[in-house]
């Protein structure tokens, strides 16, 4: 297997090169530049021109590309035009915020979704199953931003149980106080998002279990007199987890994606908001760095999913 993983990683190199070319050229195709948004009547057009020359924006694209790639190998993604800081510093600050929140949300999602899916599948067609399915339809139907605004209004403002925005309180002090404050700030956005992200997991798990229940090998196990509990945990559950495992890799690498809705409504500065604002402000260095990071993460996500699959199902061997 290690050989296969190594081979997959080597194949990624040309993929990443093509990705970087596409990202860079497409970014340059966008109309406007990082300075368009900061024009005021007092701005001097000739000074703007000089600044653009200084920033190398008028160089031919291959010169800019070469420059960018060489710097990237030195771990330097350039300087953000809007933040006037190194891109890694800007992204780093946001990535930590997003990672915390996403991790919290993903764990919560699985904690809610897996038991629900298991129960619904095991007690198929009972009232419990119908209740869970109803919950599923409701969460599937509600748009995320409506749910978030509603939740924020109810729990943040009317009841006042949770902070209404931000990632950490201004008055938090000390390492421990900071962590507690961060956790406290994550509860509301995390729980709300997790509730709405359970749908597919519950649904997949339920239908897989229903499927497996009628397999011959389950009937055989039952006929041999294997206790129902064991039939369920040994024969049904493991097979049913396959589709979920298939998504696991993406979930892990997707932790850095961030959600524009959550970040906007809870004024939680994360990767999603950064990406959106960078695009509208034409902050090329941040855009290209982010897309590269996302692209590489997606490639590793696929690999990771394959590896997880092979662990869960020994019949699958990645080649």
């Amino acid at each position, binding site marked *: 297997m290690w050989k296969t993983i190594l081979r997959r990683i080597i194949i990624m190199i040309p993929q990443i090169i093509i990705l970087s070319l596409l990202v860079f050229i497409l970014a340059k195709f966008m109309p406007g530049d990082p300075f368009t948004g*900061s024009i*005021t009547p007092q701005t001097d057009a000739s000074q*703007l021109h000089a600044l653009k020359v200084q*920033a190398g924006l008028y160089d031919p694209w291959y010169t800019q590309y070469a420059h960018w790639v060489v710097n990237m190998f030195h771990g330097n993604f350039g300087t953000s035009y809007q933040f006037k800081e190194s891109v890694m510093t800007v992204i780093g600050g946001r990535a930590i915020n997003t990672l915390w929140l996403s991790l919290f949300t993903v764990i919560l999602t699985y904690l809610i979704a897996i038991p629900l899916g298991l129960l619904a599948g095991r007690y198929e067609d009972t009232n419990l199953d119908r209740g869970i399915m109803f919950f599923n339809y409701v969460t599937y139907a509600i748009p995320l931003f409506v749910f978030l605004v509603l939740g924020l209004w109810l729990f943040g403002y009317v009841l006042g149980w949770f902070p209404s925005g931000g990632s950490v309180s*201004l008055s938090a002090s000390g390492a421990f106080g900071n962590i507690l404050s961060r956790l406290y700030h994550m509860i509301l956005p995390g729980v709300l998002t997790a509730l709405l992200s359970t749908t597919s997991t519950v649904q997949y798990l339920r239908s897989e279990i229903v499927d497996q229940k009628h397999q011959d090998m389950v009937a055989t196990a039952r006929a041999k007199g294997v206790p129902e509990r064991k039939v369920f945990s040994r024969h049904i559950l493991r097979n049913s987890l396959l589709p979920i495992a298939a998504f696991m890799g993406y979930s892990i690498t997707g932790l850095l994606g961030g959600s524009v809705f959550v970040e*906007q409504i809870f004024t939680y*500065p994360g990767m999603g908001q950064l990406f959106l604002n960078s695009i509208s402000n034409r902050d090329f260095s941040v855009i290209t760095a982010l897309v590269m990071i996302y692209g590489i993460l997606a490639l590793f996500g696929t690999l990771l999913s394959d590896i997880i699959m092979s662990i869960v199902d020994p019949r699958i061997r990645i080649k």
Partner: protein
Amino acid sequence: MSKKWSVGAVAVLAALTLAACGNSKSASSTSSSKPTLPLTYSSKKSAIKGGTLKVAEVNTAAFKGIWDNALTTNAEDADMMQFGNEGLFATDKNFKIVKGGAANLTLNQKSKTATIKINPKVKWSDGKPLVAQDVAYAYKVLANKGTASQYYTGSIANIKGIAAYHAGKAKDISGVQIKNKRTVVIHFKVMKPGMKTSGNGYFWENAEPYHYIKNVSFKKLASSDQIRKHPLFYGPYKLSKEVSGESVKWVPNTYYYKGTPKLKEIDVQVVSPDSIAAALKAHKYDVTYGLGSSTYAKVKNVSGYTMTGKKALAYDYLGFNLGKYDAKTGKNVMNKNAKMANPSLRKAIAYAMNIDAVEKKFSYGLGSRMTTLIPSAFSKYQDKSAKGFPLNLKKANALLNKAGYKKGKDGYRTDPNGKKLTIHLAEMQGNSNTQAIVKNYIQQWKKIGLRVTLTNGRFLDMNNFYEKVQANSSDVDMFEAAWSLSSEPSPMDLYSENAPFNMGRFVSKENTKLLNDIDSQKAFNTSYRVNAFKKWQDYMNKEAAYVPEIEVVQSYAVNNRVKNWSLSNASKDFNWAKVQVTSNSLSK
């Protein structure tokens, strides 16, 4: 409060500042029944000692945290640092520089100098006094290529020797002379009447803590800890804690020269426009910055708050594509054969617009039709007798008939040569109101027989819009855009022959003459300048070079426990040190 530069950039139709250009604060649409929001608020109850003021910065974009006037270019940072960031000079309500600030300014027309005398009581938040070196060093920060500051402009290059320093040919700026420990003399090539007003751009109105940042290279200054993490201010409060992109805590600067500030703490938090109404209903904040007009409608009656407001230094306008900018000569060139070159056509378009009705419907009483290209925030210079272009379809039709735009069988007019006339209107993306408003105008123009279609058939992204408009693309005949202004009203940078931002490229000998008159030596006499302004406004309306559309009142919610709050332009009367609260919890 801070108004030394034109924050904001280009907003359009005011309402649209959503995510696309988070840096403009003139957001709001607009009406003819102007509400008279008070400029100040002060609770009648007696103040408590200390207390925490909670400020909401309503925005979709996180602030950047570049705590330096010469380096930051976004409105969020300016809002977030106003509690410590005080300009050098005090102003009156007309933005005129007066005595009584951190420094006093004396202009000398004969010797072509400005003398800046620092008040000896002024100290940085680390206790070190503000000295001449600090004022002088700010010019180096601004002009050195290493900092890549956008505030190095043609206006500032009017200082002797600064261009040589900018080009790296001189070690010092010869025109910025340190006379003694607390006096700096600036030498200009030409004196301009605008120099009497704050926000003029001919000299810099801030200082840099030389003793603190002298060892940081210009290139690294913007990302240095001295600017980002532990900045120094000589204003009433100093920065004590920052949570990147979301909140900032300010505590009193005990060295403040006008007396120790009254509050114990000021907490500023970025709040999403989606949730600010709920936040105010839950009484979470004392003061809001950047409240849009649609939010204003939702919160104006919330108990415990008083709405205050002031006229924004910003406006929306309709421009016509009349020529090109020649980058080689640095001049606008008007094309006499351009589709929109006929003033009668432009006037007819203006008279067909039902701006008053639109404002009544969409602005919640905050906006109003502009009558000239000078917003009424410049009450002294705006021509109050001007009527602008009130809705008059009869007049519009008559103008077109007279100019030879004949109506065809399909109800649309042809150009005077009998050819089909289609006018392409470039529009920037906005909110749902923007779409309705633009559709309405297109219908209005149809009423007078003009076929107007959107450039590209849709609303354009901000960057795309400005790229097309600035290049005078042939698929743009007219465009709706907006300006945020600095507090010096000279229209030179926006409408002159040499102004790249005169994006319609309107040029005429008369215009050049009138504009030059506004900035002439004679105009040092204020009444002469007021008169010159009036003549220029009349001329621009006569030519309908641009159609002035809308100006707005920017609203601010203030909780009733706040004392001594003011939006006045007169910084001589207000500073954050005076603000107090009357109880520990917000008024409900």
